[in-house]
């Protein structure tokens, strides 16, 4: 299991590096990784979840994919607080509503937290959060931060919605009102628009949350 995890991570890095090098050659980026942009193909990635399963973005072709940047330590994400979208029921509510609109929607968490802690500890703490929420979601480990930087993920929670063609359709906040438990929801609106063959009316918002503590 451990070998597989390490190998797939190496593959993911290789894939990510290949992507960025080609973009850099095309003159789209300078020294930093390309940021995902709404309306353009979402950057490809391969990451392994805390259970050892490998996920490739291309595997989800034909399905709407929601990526949520996650940290077990941030009080707006998985941290123990009333603001935690995982602990206060917001994620559960969102997933249920999305499934009602589009049963094939894929919702995964991406964890780019490094914070100077061992990866195993972060994975264990992440699993512990999900064990309390009643919603089982894969937690994709991005310990090196390669995918997070490629997407320009700034905070947890920072959400991305990708359509079945692999095009990024929404990036930004989890919802419009961080204090509501069931407020207006940009992500649900994006998933609904995509299901109806429309372009989401709100494509980009300012995410709120804790800064992603990337590997330095």
């Amino acid at each position, binding site marked *: 299991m451990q070998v597989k995890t390490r190998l797939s991570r190496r593959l993911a890095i290789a894939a990510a590096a290949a992507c960025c090098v080609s973009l850099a050659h095309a003159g789209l980026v300078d020294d930093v990784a390309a940021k995902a942009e709404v*309306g353009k193909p979402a950057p490809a990635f391969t990451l392994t979840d805390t259970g050892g399963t490998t996920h490739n973005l291309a595997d989800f072709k034909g399905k709407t994919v929601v990526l949520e940047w996650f940290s*077990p*330590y*941030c*009080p*707006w994400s998985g*941290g*123990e*607080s*009333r*603001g935690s979208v995982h602990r206060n029921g917001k994620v559960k509510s969102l997933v249920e509503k999305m499934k009602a609109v589009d049963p094939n929607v894929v919702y995964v968490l991406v964890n780019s937290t490094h*914070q100077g802690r061992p990866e195993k*500890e972060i994975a264990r*703490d992440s699993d*512990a*959060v999900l064990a309390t929420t009643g919603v089982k979601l894969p937690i994709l480990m991005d310990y090196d931060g390669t995918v997070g930087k490629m997407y320009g993920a*700034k*905070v947890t929670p920072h959400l991305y919605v990708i359509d079945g063609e692999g095009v990024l359709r929404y990036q930004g906040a989890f919802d*419009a009102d*961080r*204090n509501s438990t069931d407020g207006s929801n940009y992500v649900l609106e994006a998933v609904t628009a995509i299901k109806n063959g429309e372009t989401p*009316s*709100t*494509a*980009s*918002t*300012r995410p*709120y*949350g*804790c*800064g*992603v*503590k*990337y590997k*330095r």
Partner: protein
Amino acid sequence: MRETRTMRPRAAPNRLIAAAGLLTATMTTVATAQLLPGVPASPREKGPDELARMSLLPERVGIPVGGSAWVLVRLAIEPKWHVYWRNPGDSGVPVELKWTLPAGISAGEIRWPRPEVFRTPYEITYGYADEVGLLVELKASEEIGTGARSASIRGDWMICKEMCLIGGADRTFEIEVSGAVEADATDSDRVPITDSEAFAAIARWQAQVPVAPPEKMKLRQMVEFPNGFRADANENAGVLRLSGPAGRFSEVRFLPDATPGTTYPEGGPVEGRVASGRFEVEVPISVRPGDALGEALRAAGIVCLGNARTDPAFEIEVPIGPPTAGGSTAP
């Protein structure tokens, strides 16, 4: 109507000072955040209710009928921790105040003092360390009756060092509505001073709040779109240009607001230049009308001279609308 008002007794500041000394507002604290999982609790660690302690000045607010009064919400912040400005920057959440007020009393927007810039290897954010005072104006309607009423405020904040916590507190306080003041009353009659400590603190924080540029300063603020502006375009590239007298200051920077649809360069404040006593700041902006969330498009923020919290800072706001001749919009 006016005659009725002038017949009412005037506010009696001296008597209110005495009253403030005798009466103490009821204070309650509710700690709402907990330590993060995996972080062992030790006796040395403070909870978020101790990392930022909220107090209200004055504790007994005097407002004349039809008048207003400033209230200061003060957060005393544990060393090395910080809370956030109205635009937190790369991450964070602004301090939030929710008022529960008696009928006839309303609260204005928070007047935010000039923030500090926090730089970490991960991000650049705007906020306050050590202490912050947030000023809010309470207003009494013309119809409100005189007398004391109780009110309360709920403060919520995200507080960070290397990690972040969510904290909050509740405070109850008293509002004393006094008789309306005479039309020719002086400012000190209009805003009854009930507490000299509060008066000093309010003045201290008021001096740190960015102001609208005074007319005589002739601060120029405009947005240009070199390739034109189209409301139906996915994205419009523009420049916010600011210029004005720099006084004795040799440094100038622009701190953007969070304005839906308009984004500013990454990497924190935009530094400008000072030459021959004038400052100039050029802020590249990107305007995506589709991301405006129903709000009017604008470029906004504060322009700050010098480096100290008390150095001058000015509110900037340029509406972005249909293009005028020359492809630019100006207020």
